[in-house]
């Protein structure tokens, strides 16, 4: 699952998957803006066939929290 998340993030943030890691966060990554955020949510929903609620979006602000939320949902 981690690899698939990295692939999606790499796609959206225009990075190499190897550059994505535990410290990738909205705060540390300038291209992870609010627009990229909704794009990311949509891409994750599509890839993992899940639905998030607004409450989830607001807390999925770094790699680890995204991974946790997805583990919980799948």
């Amino acid at each position, binding site marked *: 699952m981690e690899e698939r998340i990295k692939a999606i993030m790499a*796609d959206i943030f225009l990075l190499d998957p190897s550059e994505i890691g535990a410290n990738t966060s909205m705060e540390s990554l300038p291209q992870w803006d609010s627009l990229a955020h909704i794009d990311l949510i949509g891409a994750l929903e599509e890839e993992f066939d899940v639905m998030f609620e607004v409450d989830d979006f607001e807390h999925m602000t770094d790699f680890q929290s995204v991974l946790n939320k997805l583990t919980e949902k799948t």
Partner: protein
Amino acid sequence: MSSSDRAEVSQPQDDAAKNRESVVAALSAGDVDQIRIAARRFLQEAASPARAARFLRGAAEKAAPTELKPFRVGILSSFTIDMVHDPLIAHGLTEGLAVDIYQAGYDQYHQEILSPDSGLYRYEPDAILLAVDERRWAPEVYDNYLTEGIDQHTELAEMVVSRVRDLITTLRQHCNAPVLLHALSYPRHPSLGILDSTSESGQRQLIARINDGLAELARDAGAIYLVDVDAIVQTIGYASWYDSRLDFFARSPIARSAFDALARYYLRYLRALSGYSRKCLIVDLDNTLWGGIVGEDGIMGVQVGSEYPGNAFVAFQQAVRALRDRGVVLAIASKNNPADAEAVFTENPGMALTLDDFSAREIHWEPKSLSISRIAEKLNLGLRHMVFVDDNPAECAEVEQALPAVTVIRLPAQPEKMVDTLLADGLFDALQFSNEDARRAELYRQRDAAEKLRTEAGSLEDYYRSLEMKLHLTNVTADNLARASQMTQKTTQFNTTTRIYTEAELDTLRNDTQWKTLTMRVVDKFGDNGIVGLMLAKCDGDYYDIDTMLMSCRVINRGVETAMLRWLADLGRKEGARAIGGWILPTKRNVPVRDLFERHQFEIVQKRGDDVLWQLDLSEPKIDLPDWLEIQDTTEV
């Protein structure tokens, strides 16, 4: 998982990888037709359209092939719409367009339009998207409707339309680019519930009235087109269109998965604005117009009629017929015994189409690519404007390989899905519909008859005489503005400079005394060809420059262009001009016009690369007018 399972699962991934490789290869080779084909296949077969679009955009930016036609889109919106960029750029590749986007800031549409020096105007867009949420144009119509809107229909409709009109008027003072304006959508939960659709005071009534007003405004202003957003919602469903979470969280009401449909809908406009609307549909017969194979099942045995699957084939024929009525020229390319195939049309009572609906027929056993080349030549149409539909993958592949400019649609095996497959991309959409369009199939038939006469007639002059041509000369007027603009977009062969003019531009020009405008309608013994000639000339002191001179291919080789040149020469002489002249700017397709000026005793005065400027000194004898042309001149100057 067994190994055979794995093989099946990996199949689509292999295809996706192959599609991705072909699109990258095509982009770096810079071959426009291959880019179009590869991008279309990649997008069609992609598991995730959003990811495919992002990939295509990246690949296109990296390769940056200069062969694509640039198209600059300025986007103004009242909500977050940035996610349409990737799919719009990606789908643009399917038409050979390099779409570039200027995205105005969130909800900045007023500022962008009102400031003469705004980023939008400096960008010089080829088209502007004005995607404003209906609540922004008309809060009274949606919120508090029962207390503020219900008994104010007339005033509200007037007010909302004038809000839009004010902005459009300002925009037009700074920019002539075509505008795609989102129409107002119906509310999902009307205030009167199920009564709304029946009630005179329903929101539906009011919104329809406002949209009518916007349509009228669009027609009056010129080059404004209403985008019927509800049509997209109807196709993909409201649940796939609207995302309430993103609306309230990020003011991004359109669901992520809907942007692909939105971009494809916008592309229908971009395609038409770029002059790539398809003009000709070539159909196969067996398993396309009817089920089964006439050579095996017999003239009465093929499936076409009131029961499934025959009724689905009838529905497909009706869709094809509707395209014909809209001005699309039809043709047949079929591998069959011609007598059998034609007998289905004349003897099988289930058929909706008749043989006369087709302007060209190629029914034999030769390759279909050859048939299509012949059809293109006979009808005088470019391959880029042709669509070929067939159920047989091998035939589709043969045509695609031999004639990559032709758009090939492979029909699904289920006949009930064929209409959607044919019409989904709106390939035949045009932004104008004139009397000439409605009569095009007939016009092509007339031309066929004229061609026949030409081969029967002895000398060329006898032939011209036998046509009994009457030419009606008028200026560009409000009545023929749409047709005149359409001709600048569609005429690629007999066109000296191939400059394109919008209705709005022509409207300005016809009221400018520096410009002389002329249209020519040709009536002959076979019927009325409609307006088939246009000339725009600009007076520069005592020199009249022919900025644009064009003629529909329907009347090429009849000597009628002489009447247009004569008209300008006479006018120039009357107004004391020294000379008239014009440039020939060669393109791949305008070969028929190259010797226009030479044939009329103009002389070369300047060359710039392949471009040549010709002039006719007006002190020379007049241009001889052939005596077989009867001219009715109602121009005013």
